[in-house]
């Protein structure tokens, strides 16, 4: 069954079929939301509430775009809402990161010039996460969608409701910013 068929059946009353939608998208949705909440809170609870929101919004789905594009728009909006709500917490987290984790990142990078080789190590994700979480919302989203979830520029432009050119610029700026944070004024990379 494709998404469209599942949604039609859910709307016709077979609500239990929503579990297929959850199974299909849970990891991708988690990954987007994870770039916002990281290790600071119970990310899974937020992912769950987003899926509940998606379920209750299904009536509004007009089958004009693909279901996934429509769904990712909700996920992105909810992530940004989450970020706004947690704004203060994130700011304090950023301060914490600047003092502790940047040193950690710097030490990590110092230990080996080749980031790629180190990427498989367990700590990498935490470091990436802590860097990613510092980026502006739009940069966070484009980087997650492109580099982590491997969506095309066109798909990202639809999900974020912006032009492909904007996606190009945002991705470039996001990478540049990410690099700046990683370097932190030190020529480490």
């Amino acid at each position: 069954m494709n998404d469209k068929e599942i949604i039609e059946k859910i709307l016709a009353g077979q609500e239990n079929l929503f579990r297929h939608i959850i199974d299909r998208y849970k990891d991708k949705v988690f990954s987007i939301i994870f770039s916002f909440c990281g290790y600071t809170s119970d990310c899974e609870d937020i992912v769950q509430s987003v899926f509940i929101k998606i379920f209750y919004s299904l009536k509004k789905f007009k089958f004009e775009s693909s279901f996934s594009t429509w769904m990712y728009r909700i996920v992105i909006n909810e992530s940004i809402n989450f970020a706004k709500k947690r704004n203060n917490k994130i700011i304090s987290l950023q301060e914490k990161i600047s003092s502790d984790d940047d040193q950690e990142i710097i030490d990590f990078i110092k230990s080996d010039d080749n980031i790629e080789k180190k990427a498989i190590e367990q700590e990498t994700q935490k470091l990436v996460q802590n860097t990613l979480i510092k980026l502006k919302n739009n940069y966070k989203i484009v980087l997650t969608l492109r580099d982590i979830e491997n969506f095309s520029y066109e798909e990202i432009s639809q999900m974020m409701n912006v032009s492909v050119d904007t996606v190009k610029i945002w991705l470039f700026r996001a990478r540049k910013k990410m690099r700046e944070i990683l370097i932190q004024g030190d020529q480490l990379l």
Partner: protein
Amino acid sequence: MKCKNIELMISLHIDNKLSLEEVTFLMEHLNSCEKCRQIYKDFKDIKIVLSDSQKTKVTNDFTDSTMKKIIDLQNKKNDNIIFVDFVKKHLIMVASFVFIIIASIVFLSKNSSDNSALAEYYLNYEQYSSVEDIYDENIISFLLLY
């Protein structure tokens, strides 16, 4: 071309978004510019690190627990709907019930004013009865005279 524009090209290149011509142009620049070469290496590393990260996934029972929450919410919603439907369906009954209550209140308050009339009657009756008593006494004394 300025290095700033080259940086954007680098970002596009690591996503395979450049034409062959553009790639050739970029490579020529990278050969001659160390600064941009470093950026190219860093952007590539960042992309690799990102694509290798995010191994964290939702827990195994995520789908079940989410579905349970949705179904619980649906049931709660249905309960509310059932109550509202009940009220709607039995609107006439509910309305008549309310009417009866109001009518009884009105009746009772009206009754209480009847009660005062009744009380007045009893009061008068007492008077009458006392008159009767006097009358009876008179009869007795009359009889006693004979």
